[in-house]
């Protein structure tokens, strides 16, 4: 509780100082017949005002972004599960496939997104979901793959003596063993999926936070820009927070 309070106080102090400096700088600039700095850097006061005035617009666009990110994340999870299970049972496929996945992850997503948007068509929902999937898939694949490989050799040998089938190994040993690794990977993949959706929207559609950011930039509305960014960040933090809560409930055996 003390920790939460100190973080809260720190943020308040930071915002207050920010507002103070901006007020002082602006006063100075307007005195000298210069443009207000508010046109380029929003003050906390403007951001709060934007939330009050344009809150509905931001929220509805945030809804689009989160829906696309959620879709991308789900597809990414699905793909990662399928691929990691194939890697688990077919080591040769893994030897060939894993470097490809690494390469895919090293590819700059900002450069990759236009390719996908071009392929699926501008304005297509699926292209955004696809960009989000590509970016969230990799951490989950790595999480699952390393969890599978970390299952103790002794356990596997005992399972062999018990004459367990591959299906039993998968459902009774490998998949449950991978839950902690999967949840850790999700902590990375959730923000990644939101980044993917935002980048996709930036380039490809007329809705969503990514698009709102572009509009705000061109219209010189830093208040809207900041408010959009803050809203998407808060949404990501809340999602990860829920995940951490679920993790605690689920992993009682890990102490």
């Amino acid at each position, binding site marked *: 509780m003390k920790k939460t309070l100190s973080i809260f106080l720190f943020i308040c102090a930071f915002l207050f100082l920010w507002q103070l400096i901006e007020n002082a700088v602006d006063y100075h600039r307007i005195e000298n017949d210069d443009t207000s700095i508010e046109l380029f850097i929003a003050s906390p006061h403007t951001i709060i005002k934007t939330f009050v005035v344009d809150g509905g617009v931001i929220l509805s666009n945030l809804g689009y972004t989160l829906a696309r990110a959620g879709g991308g994340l789900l597809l990414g999870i699905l793909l990662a599960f399928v691929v990691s299970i194939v890697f688990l049972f077919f080591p040769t496929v893994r030897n060939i496939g894993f470097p490809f996945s690494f390469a895919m992850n090293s590819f700059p997503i900002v450069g990759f997104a236009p390719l996908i948007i071009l392929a699926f068509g501008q304005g297509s929902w699926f292209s955004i979901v696809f960009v989000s999937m590509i970016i969230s898939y990799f951490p989950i694949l790595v999480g699952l793959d390393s969890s599978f490989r970390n299952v*103790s050799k002794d356990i596997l040998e*005992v399972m062999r*003596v*018990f*004459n367990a089938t591959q299906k039993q190994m998968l459902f*009774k040993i490998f998949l449950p063993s991978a839950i902690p690794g999967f949840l850790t990977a999700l902590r990375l993949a959730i923000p990644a999926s939101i980044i993917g959706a935002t980048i996709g929207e930036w380039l490809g559609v007329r809705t969503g936070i990514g698009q709102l950011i572009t509009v705000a930039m061109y219209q010189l509305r830093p208040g809207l820009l900041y408010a959009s960014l803050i809203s998407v960040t808060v949404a990501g933090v809340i999602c990860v927070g829920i995940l951490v809560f679920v993790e605690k409930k689920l992993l009682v055996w890990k102490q």
Partner: protein
Amino acid sequence: MSIAPLIELKNVSRAYKKNGARAVGVSNVSFSVQEGEIIALVGPSGCGKTTILRMIADIISPDTGSVVYENRSINHARITGLIGYVPQSPSLIPFRSVVGNIRLPLEIKGTPDASRVEELVSLCALEGFENYFPSELSGGMKQRTAIACALACHPRVLLMDEPFAALDEMIKEKLNEEVLRIQSALKTTIVYVTHNIEEAVFLANRVVVLSPEPGSVVGIIPIDLPLVRDARLRTDPRFFQETIKVRNMLKSI
């Protein structure tokens, strides 16, 4: 002995890779295990004790020679659930409780029977720990659970690979007595790997002494001690005599 052996190792050899080169781990090992006996494999580290046990468990196959169970391949014995295996480090599933771990082999076999789980809990003296997770158990309790798991499907042979090597002396002695108690209750045949001479003599009816690199049988010593044994045996002069026999043979390597 005129009775046909339960398990027979016939000229078993197995190589392994050491720094990329082929090294012979176990060479030309032959011995047999009679039904209902406890046989201990003793030898210095690197003599292939574990390799031999893993071959009897059908986890690995011999390069040459064969492991036979009642005139059939050992593979058949494993598939039909006649073998239980307790590895060196406790091989418990971390996300399953004690009861969950004991139930796992039954689930695999398709007979998750709650009364059998209860039986095993009381046989291995795990009462009160049923819902503990492995991370909450002491080393001794973990190995008791591992033994319960291995015994779950009524195996006729229990293979134990230095199961108590990591435990302190007092607990090890207690668990050795437990193994004898369980064995006399179930009449399970036990092949027990250890590098501890006292442990081998205390448990076994016969001790197979192995030499290192490549592992081969130096001799088989029948232990001339009463079949029913308890803690008092450890201070019996006959017990010392038997350990001396094993020790001398190990020294002669």
